[in-house]
């Protein structure tokens, strides 16, 4: 039998950025999973709303708006350095990557600290009733995300300072930024539910 024709792929680039990469699709999978958790938790919140004559139940005060709103603004503001870090990554610009990732981390420290104040001013404890439980788990689920996003961004930032640097690390920077976007965007409906649903129902 004759030798088959060949498709030579040796000239293809050894990697890529953005939605062309394998990791992008993996990140998207994680985003889908976690969004589903948020959607289901929010759905159960409204299920409890329909089961209660008043909301919040038993004359409880709604969560204090101040810290939640401040944190929303901090999270939204963090999108700027996040986008700059992403673009620096795509340019393979090590200096800018280092600067903007450190700025991102400072924002992350900020919104994690304010998050503690949010918990303190929910005006209900988790073991008070089902309303307290669902509010705490909504805020808790998102807190798990901002804590882990802070930790993995910190590891990546450390790597950009001390680790062996190659171009694939800059793809990681970009994908880290994509996940950061998700964590910020996912907060907006949760903020609306925790802080505004008790005021509007």
């Amino acid at each position, binding site marked *: 039998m004759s030798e088959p024709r*060949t498709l030579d792929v040796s000239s293809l680039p050894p990697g890529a*950025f953005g939605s062309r990469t394998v990791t992008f699709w993996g990140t998207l999978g994680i985003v889908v999973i976690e969004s589903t958790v948020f959607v289901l938790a929010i759905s159960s919140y409204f299920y409890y709303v329909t089961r209660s004559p008043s909301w919040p139940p038993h004359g409880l005060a709604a969560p204090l708006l101040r810290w939640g709103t401040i944190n929303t603004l901090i999270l939204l503001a963090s999108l700027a350095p996040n986008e700059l870090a992403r673009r620096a990554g795509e340019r393979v610009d090590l200096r800018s990557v280092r600067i903007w990732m450190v700025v991102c981390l400072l924002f992350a420290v900020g919104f994690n600290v304010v998050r503690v104040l949010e918990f303190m001013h929910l005006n209900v404890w988790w073991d008070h009733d089902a309303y307290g439980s669902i509010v705490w788990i909504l805020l808790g689920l998102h807190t798990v995300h901002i804590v882990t996003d802070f930790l993995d961004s910190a590891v990546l930032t450390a790597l950009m300072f001390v680790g062996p640097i190659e171009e694939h690390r800059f793809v990681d920077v970009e994908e880290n930024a994509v996940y950061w976007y998700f964590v910020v965007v996912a907060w907006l409906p949760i903020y609306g539910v925790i802080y505004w649903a008790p005021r509007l129902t």
Partner: protein
Amino acid sequence: MRGPLDADGGAVQLEQTWADPSGLIGWFEHVDHKSLGRRYLITAFGFFLIGGVLAALMRLQLSRPDNTFIGPDLYNQIFSTHGTTMMFLFAVPVMQGLGIYFVPLMVGARSIAFPRLVAFSYWMFLFGGIFLFVSFLLNAGPDVGWFSYPPLSEALYTPTKRADVWAQLITFTEVASLAVAVAIITTVLKLRTPGMTLNRLPIFVWAQVVTSFMVLFAMPAVMLASTELILDRLVGTHFFDVEHAGDALVWQHLFWFFGHPEVYIIFIPGTGIVSTIITTFSRRHIFGYLPVILSLVATAFMGFGLWVHHMFATGLPQLGESFFTAASIMIAIPTGTQIFCWIATMWSGRIAVKTPMLWILGFFAIFILGGLTGVMLAAVPLNIQVHDTFFVVAHFHYVLIGGAVFPLFGAFYYWYPKITGRMLSERVGAWVFALLFTGFNLTFFPMHVLGLHGMPRRVYTYAASMGWDSLNLLASLGALLMACGVLTFVVDAVRALSAGAVAADNPWGAGTLEWATTSPPPNSNFPRSPTAAGREPLWDNPPDQPVVVGLRSDARDVLVTHVLDAEPDHRLVFPEPSIWPFLTAIATTGLFIWSIFTPWGVVYGAGPVFVTMVGWFWPKSPDEGGSQPWPIAHRTLPRPSEAPAAGGAI
């Protein structure tokens, strides 16, 4: 360029590059999808045997009235652990195991995407299973059903750790199956060989990818629910506690929002197997490729709109009941479409009845009966009449064993030669089939009648005066036949490993790409990856169909292609074997088990998880498996918006 780029000169080197390490420590470092797939299959089958033993104990207890062999407390643990095992530790993982092994081969890839994640997933699955059975042996097995309904599962009524064991087992297995789902989806979207457009994707792969998407949307529901249950039990939240404005129905909604799709997560891969085997043994392309694929997708969507039919007895509004009745009946349409396509394929093909095909014929008989009782159960009046009776037990065993286990045995016979390089005995296979088919119907058909006569599920015994003894005895004898069948299969499978006839590369004359390589496949899957010119490449490819060359043989270089049309896009060096996924799984296991006893377990346990994950992520060398670091002074990698560098060659 870096290193020899053509595999032609480097076939030996290529094999070494893709080899998993040997030795005891090396055994914990495997990342080859074939090794991980084998482990998944063997482990899940082991759990199937344990679940089977539990079932046999139940049948022994119920074989005669007023039996005192097993008491009520142990019986509760046995049926709960049996259901939990079969759903979470057997049915889902065994199908995913097939996917891990065969999806990369069928799409012509060298590896599964995220091989280390899949390795981590395997260890989580294994540790979860061990955790369940050790708990069972310590008299802490789950005893509130595989669905753990509150209020029974709340701390007030289950003060032991049994419900916590159940809830954490869920976390173990869901982490594992979510990881595999992401890996399979990414493999299918990004690692298909050139020419394999989505329109040419093998139906088995379609079934795997549709199932994986269902996993992404269904499993989070049960993870959220089981986490809330643990919180209720451990830190005093009130999600399901009616006394504090909670609602037990929230549990049922969340659980069945997962639980009903779960049935299709198990059944859709089964239909993928059926399509594959029927195509091969009818010697023709499947009749109605497009309707079959659309049916799979439609089933997946509709599968999320049926969950309330598990809750008809809870007193829902009538409008809701009518909607879910309609949806539950409607889902018979896509399944019916597939069945007609299979019949048309066989009708117009030249059928060869080999052992894999026997199981598919058995599937038809059993699954269609289960489907019919399913349509019956969708009607609210009948549903409420037979709720919690053996009629329901009969129904879902017909659906699950018919829809998944029979195709699965077909798959074992079909793919055993590819995995091991040996053939299973056709003669013994016919016996195994006959024993299981007869045994199954003897066991489960009488349960329809018992249910209609009012025998409730989950009772450890019944009075002689009920008149249920002879049918129960018949069911128990059937279970004995099934046990003989499974045992014969195990003996034959072990024997054939060394004594079976040596398998050719393509013993069945099939058309998909896993048969384009040796049996068993080499470490790199394909020395030179084939490309696809049709849905059954081995049947459709012209003699001069191109093969892929130019991937490095000194690194785990894979070809990444475009999502829709699989045009070549870039190359990527995949990760080396690593111990870190195993260590991360150990740390995560510690966290999960610790958290059963104190909420601080989550806090303290997170430390080791973080450390091991950093170890996993931290690069070991500038370019793993490569020679020198890349210059980063200027950009070399393409951006998302740029056109592909090559493509359109196929």
